[in-house]
Every structure is written in structure tokens, then in C-alpha cells.
């Protein structure tokens, strides 16, 4: 098709909507925003071109994986330290994609603009694509990785795992509320700020650790993301052009950023820094390049003339990023029997890297990792959980442990609302709760579910055992000759305890009107 014809066709597809005369539907997703009718889909994709473009990409990705990569047994050659963490990463990213698909369904309904609607449809099918691609990668690794346990059941285990559950709290934000609030969470924050550090930089880590399957999948995912960022920018620019929208826009933007930051910067930070074997850059470096400079620096600054400012808590987040991944990783490793991956204790080389990349790291985390390395042999019967008085309470909003940014400067706060105690990891999470407490107050944290459980009972109930019915899926090291069994755990008599009921309340939540 000639370019002039393409432009003509694209102009016409903008004109599909009409004002209903017979039935005026009630809004399925009522939005508090005024959405101008004139906005622009910067990508101008028609279904025909879209299908052709995506099919080519699919053929390249799936073809490479099923052909040369499988024949060369590449997944078996990747660093095991790295491959293990993908057991948890993929169920998390896959849910982000799934929630994104739901978000675009809401946007098609709510944004009264034919051109953007069709851009959102392309994104909707993209998100189905990404769900399928990432699930395919998990299944591929179940078939080809040295240890399939954890890949085979990851999607079943994510609902009962304390860390993967927290991804629900972050990504539900894509479609739980006002459709524009969802677009801010998804397109403006998660996709524009975070997909580059996840799908681009993380793939560099994967590749340098011998994993070619993840880059093949993730870079193909990322090739769609530029369109989604453009969808987000078009939506945001349209909304920001109406001055009445600005107070609400800023408020939703503030909570969207904090919601994504509390989960993504801790989870991705831990994955990035602790599962590299062949070491390169740090998460903080990736964050500074992509989130601080690229997103906070140029993308959001360009919106300032419209009246959109950097999100509330931005400066605090810049400081937190240095520590949150390490802090949560410490709890992640300390609770290893509750996870479904095998951990690799840190070596002297790792210690050196951490201290170089994060000066002061050893003083806060080094002793823990030294002790951890002595506790991997089941014959010794020591759990790193014993190094701590208790598991910290989990945040009612983000469901992450309330010990961030660093245990000695934790910003935890305990408040009461509607007859229950609620822990918040940070002022930002408490602020989100104060604005809309009814959206969070009925939820339960992982600790509230399992308070009082014997650790062995938890492991058995959640299906955290290997095919032999006795060896744990999770292990504190990569050694095959020293694997923990359920009997080793039973001997510990460890009881899961939620500290929240015993922590003093700092008073009622002050609800914002």
C-alpha cells in the first residue's frame, strides 16, 4: 500500500465513533477525568500492518528458541544462580502483562476517541502476546533448565508466596481503579520508567550469565513497549491539557509511582544484584540511567509546562533505591525454605562487588551473608531465620516487608483503622491508604494468612516439595549433594509468627478527604 493511501486509511479509522441516539450506556468505568476528544495515536497502526509485524517477531523469537537454542542445550549452560531466580521472576512479569491487558480493555471503553481506542486494542493483543511469551519461557525452562522444579509449578505457587504475592498489590493498580489511574500506573510509570531496566538492562545481565532464552523473549517483548509508552504519553498529554484534571492527575500519578516503586525497585533490585554470577553493572546504576535520568529527568520534565510535576516521594525514592533491594533480599534469603528457588551464597568476589557498587554495604548486610554461607548444610540444622527475632510485618498497601529502606532506618509505621492494625512500610504507602482506606483495609498479608503455622506444615500445604515428596524445591545453596528435606525442616520446629498484633499502634489512620 502506498504511503498516501495508508495515511488516508488511518485518517478514516479515526472516524468510527458516533454519538448514540437509541441507547446511552452508563459508563462501565466511570472516570473523574475530562478526556478531550482530539488526541493522537502516534503510531498509526492498522490491523493489517500490526499482524504482519507481530508475526515476524513471533517467528524470530519462537523459531530461535525451538531450533538452535534447544539443540545447543543453551539453557543448561547458563549460570544456575541466574536461572534459578527466573522461577520467581516469570510468574511476576507475566502477571504484570496480564494486568496490562485488563487495563487496555478499560481504556478502550473509557477514552472516547477512536484513534486511541485502536492503539489500545493493539496494546491489548500485545499484552496477550507478552503473557504467552513469558509463560512460554517458563515452560521452556521447565523443559530445558537443569532443575525444572519451581519452573513447573511457579504459577501455582505465586499466590501463596510472600514475595510474588506482593506483585499483585503493584500490578492490580493497572486496572483496579479509574481507567486513567490505571494508565498512569501502567503506561506512564511501569512501562515508561521501568520496562527499560527490566526488559533491556536485565537481559544484559541474563546474556552475560549465559542465558540467551530470556533476552530472546524479553527483547521481543520490549519491541512492543515503545508503542505502549507512546500510548501513555498520548493519554497523559491529552489529560494534562485540561487544567481541571491536574489536581487529580498529580494525586494519581503520585500514588502510581509509589505503588510501582515499592515493589519493582525492591524486587528487580534484588534479582539484578544478587543473581548475577558474571558481574557487570548494578541495579542502582541501571535505575539512575533509565528511571532517574531518562524518565524523571527528561520525560517528566517535559510535562512540567503542563503542570505535571515529579511524583511525591521522588527524592525519597532516589535515596531508597540504594538500599531496598539489599534489605528485601536479606529477608528473601533468610526465608529460603518458604521460597521456590535455590539460592547461591555470596562469595568473596560478590562481597567485593557489592562494596564497590554500594559503599557501606558490608556494614549493613555483610555479616548476614557471612552467617548465611555457614548455614546451608542440612546436617548442621541451622536456618538463617534464626538470625532474626521475627519476620517484619508486611505492608498493608504494597505487601512488602516493613524494614525498608534499611533495617536501621526503617520507616515502618503501625496504625489502626476499622478495628484492625495495619503496618505501612513507608509514608508513601500510608498516604495511599489514607486517601482510600476502603480499597486496602479488607486485605490480608501473607503473615496474617500463615500466622501460627509450623514451617513444615506451610511447605507441605503450599506444595513446596519436589517430586520425591520430601526434598524442598527451595534450597539455600546450589549443591545437589546437600539438599534439605521436609524432615530437616520439621526438626527446626519453626513457627511462622506475625509480629503485627504485638506491635504498639501509633494511633488511628488519619483519612484524607
Amino acid at each position, binding site marked *: 500500500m502506498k504511503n498516501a493511501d495508508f495515511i488516508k486509511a488511518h485518517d478514516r479509522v479515526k472516524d468510527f465513533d458516533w454519538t448514540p441516539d437509541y441507547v446511552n450506556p452508563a459508563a462501565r468505568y466511570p472516570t473523574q477525568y475530562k478526556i478531550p476528544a482530539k488526541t493522537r495515536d502516534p503510531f498509526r497502526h492498522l*490491523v493489517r500492518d500490526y499482524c504482519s509485524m507481530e508475526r515476524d517477531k513471533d517467528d524470530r523469537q519462537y523459531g530461535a528458541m525451538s531450533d538452535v537454542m534447544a539443540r545447543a542445550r543453551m539453557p543448561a549452560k547458563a549460570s544456575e544462580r541466574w536461572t534459578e531466580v527466573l522461577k520467581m521472576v516469570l510468574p511476576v512479569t507475566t*502477571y504484570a502483562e496480564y494486568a496490562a491487558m485488563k487495563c487496555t480493555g478499560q481504556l478502550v471503553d473509557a477514552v472516547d476517541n477512536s484513534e486511541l481506542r485502536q492503539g489500545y486494542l493493539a496494546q491489548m493483543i500485545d499484552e496477550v502476546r507478552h503473557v504467552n511469551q513469558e509463560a512460554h519461557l517458563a515452560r521452556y525452562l521447565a523443559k530445558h533448565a537443569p532443575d525444572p522444579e519451581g519452573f*513447573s509449578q511457579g504459577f*501455582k505457587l505465586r499466590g501463596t508466596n510472600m514475595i510474588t*504475592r506482593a506483585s499483585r498489590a503493584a500490578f492490580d493498580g493497572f486496572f483496579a481503579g479509574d481507567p486513567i489511574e490505571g494508565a498512569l500506573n501502567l503506561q506512564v510509570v511501569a512501562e515508561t520508567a521501568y520496562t527499560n531496566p527490566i526488559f533491556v538492562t536485565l537481559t544484559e545481565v541474563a546474556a552475560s550469565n549465559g542465558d540467551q532464552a530470556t533476552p530472546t523473549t524479553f527483547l521481543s517483548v520490549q519491541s512492543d513497549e515503545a508503542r505502549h509508552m507512546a500510548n501513555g504519553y498520548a493519554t497523559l498529554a491529552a489529560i494534562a491539557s485540561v487544567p481541571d484534571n491536574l489536581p487529580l492527575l498529580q494525586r494519581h500519578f503520585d500514588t502510581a509511582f509509589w505503588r510501582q516503586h515499592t515493589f519493582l525497585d525492591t524486587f528487580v533490585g534484588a534479582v539484578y544484584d544478587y543473581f548475577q554470577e558474571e558481574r557487570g553493572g548494578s541495579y542502582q546504576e541501571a535505575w539512575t540511567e533509565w528511571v532517574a535520568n531518562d524518565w524523571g529527568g527528561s520525560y517528566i520534565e517535559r510535562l512540567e509546562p503542563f503542570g505535571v510535576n515529579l511524583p511525591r516521594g521522588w527524592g525519597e525514592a532516589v535515596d531508597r533505591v540504594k538500599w531496598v533491594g539489599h534489605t528485601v533480599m536479606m529477608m528473601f534469603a533468610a526465608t529460603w525454605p518458604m521460597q521456590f528457588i535455590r539460592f547461591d551464597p555470596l562469595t568473596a568476589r560478590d562481597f567485593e562487588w557489592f562494596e564497590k557498587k554500594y559503599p557501606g554495604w558490608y556494614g549493613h548486610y555483610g555479616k548476614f551473608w557471612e552467617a548465611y554461607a555457614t548455614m546451608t548444610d542440612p546436617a548442621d540444622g541451622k536456618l538463617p531465620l534464626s538470625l532474626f527475632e521475627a519476620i517484619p510485618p508486611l505492608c498493608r498497601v504494597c505487601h512488602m516487608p516493613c524494614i525498608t529502606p534499611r533495617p536501621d532506618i526503617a520507616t515502618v509505621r503501625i496504625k489502626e483503622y476499622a478495628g484492625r492494625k495495619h503496618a505501612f512500610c513507608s509514608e508513601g504507602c500510608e498516604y495511599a491508604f489514607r486517601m482510600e482506606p476502603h480499597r486496602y483495609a479488607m486485605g490480608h498479608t501473607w503473615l496474617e494468612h500463615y500466622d501460627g503455622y509450623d514451617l513444615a506444615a506451610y511447605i507441605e500445604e503450599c506444595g513446596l516439595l519436589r517430586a520425591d515428596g520430601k526434598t524442598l524445591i527451595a534450597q539455600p545453596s546450589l549443591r545437589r549433594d546437600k539438599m534439605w528435606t521436609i524432615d530437616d525442616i520439621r526438626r527446626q520446629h519453626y513457627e511462622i509468627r506475625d509480629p503485627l498484633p504485638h506491635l504498639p499502634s501509633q494511633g488511628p489512620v488519619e483519612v484524607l478527604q
Partner: protein
Amino acid sequence: MTAAPTPEVKTARDFTYIKPSARRLSEYEALTVHMQPDPIDFDRPRGKVASQEWYLLRPDGTPLWRPDSTRLRHENWYAYRDPAQQWQRTYVRLQEQQETAIARSTEDAALDGTLAGLDRNWVDRMLCQHYRAWSFFDYAIFRTLAPAQREALSDTLGSVLCFQSFDHLRHAQGVILYLVELENHLSGVDDSAGKDAWLNADIYQPARRLAEQIMATNDWAELLVGLNLVVGPLLQQMATSDLIRRNALENGDLVAAHMVTTAERDRRRNLAAAQALVRMVTDSSCSEATHNREVIQEWLDDWTARALAAARALEPVYTQPPVRAISFGESFEAAKAATAKIMTDLGFHASVEGA
């Protein structure tokens, strides 16, 4: 006596948490089932808390997925399987093949002079006016199915709704692309005639009313049932298969005929998906089968009445093609009979019979 060797425990190298519908787990099932969190069963921690599992509620305090998003009831929506087993790769490949085939046949028809030689009455009345007007009907279906996938109570239902939504935007855009090409070969091709007819011509007002009702329908299962068991076989059959495809062949327009053929392939797939849903919720193993049967019968009757009004109003269009392949009476009777058969095969009363 020596002890028997311990049998080696074989570690599963596939997803173990999905119950396959056939002997082996299909790629479609592996990549689709349990992608949507199930707050009631699959993803709910057993633990000490008996309630459903929600992290963030909607602003009105309701959960992210609501059982009352459809009037149908089922204890496990995740048991649903798309008979076509489409996941994104297979679906996009199918549509890429169909779109490439249409692009090629359009290019060939342009080069061999077929497009320039088309009868102007065919182009002006049937393509610019009728077929283009109908693109708005397809657009309405695209619009309503996108939020329907948001609300669907399982991933397997959500993906069917996503793909069907995409189908209808493909059909709607296809008409525009074809008219743009025709403008290169014939002067005075008027793309705006379709929207004008859609908004103003009496012939299309019952269809427009139905389109607006479709856009206002929030029950995702009702949409699957009504669109595929009633609107597809009755109204889309008449408005596109009979009026465009059959007449196109008689009037030398192979491209338009080809376009409708690909839409019919989509329609067959979506019909099978809806039939599978109806069978699942009315199966004797479903405790709510009686309730579901009543609801579906109500939907079928309601949608039949609306689709019949839209179908009857199309009668004048049947006189428009320069060479007429089929009369309104033949087309209407055949469509009614086919629709009735679909309903009676599923054990429902077909109010379309004798209408």
C-alpha cells in the same frame, strides 16, 4: 535377598498444575490457563483466612473480578477451553495470513483491471454505502468486547473475548482499506456515504439501535452468546455473507467476496467458542445448569427479536446489486433456519422459527 531398587522419581518437565482437556497439555492451555489469578480457589492461600483473596479493591469497594459480571453461574470458569485453542501466536498468524491474502488479491485485482472494471452501482451502493455502513456495526462489537475481556471470570474466556474483539476491528478496517484502494482506480468513490447511511438511512436504524445496545451490554457471557449464536448466523450472515459475498461473486468483485470469506472463518471460530461456553454451563455436571439454561433462553429470545428487526430492515438493500445473487426472502429464510438449528442443537427453543 536384596531390596528392590528404589524406583527413580521422575521430575515433571512441564506445568503440573493444569488439568489438560485432552490426554496431553496443549500449548494453548499451558500458556493461557491460570494466568488470571483466581481469588476464590487456585491462587487463594488456604492459611487461616477463609475469605477471598483481594489486594486492592475497586473505588466502589467491589473486587477486581465480580461473579455478578455475568448472570450465568459456574463453579469453575477456568474449566472453559477455547475449541480453536488459540493463543496469541496462532491467532496473529491466522490473521496475518488472512490479511496478507486479502492484500494480495486486492493487488492482483488492481493490476489485472478488475477493480477499474467494477460496476459503479455495485461500488457506490453496495460497497461505499452498505458495506461501509456495516463497518460501524463491526466497530461497535470491537468496542464492547474489549471491556468484556476485562471482566471475564477466567483467562480462557478473556482470551476468546480479546481475539474476537480484534476480529471485528479487522473487519471494520478492511472495508476502509479496500475503498481507499478503489479510489485509485475509480473516480468519485465516496467513503463518507457509509457513515451517512449508518447515521441517517432508515434501513440501518434498527442495526444501529442493536449496535448501541451491544455497546451498552455489560454481561460478557451475554455478549458471547448473543453475538455468536444470534447476531452472527442471522444478521452478519445476511448483511455480509449474503449481501456482500454472494453478490460480489455475481458482480465480479472477488476481493470483497474474499474479505467476507475471512470474516466467516472468524465467525465459525467464535460460534464454536460460544457453543462451548453454553455446553459448559448447561452440562448436567454444572449445579447451576437449570438457572443458566433459563438465562440463556431469555438472552436468545431477546437478541433474536432485536436481530430480526435489524435483518428485516435490510430488505431494500437486496434490490441494490446490479446483478442479484439472492433475494431477501431466500436469504432471510436460510439465515433464520441456520440460526434456529444452532439454538435447537444446544437444546434451546428457537423463537426465530416462524418469525
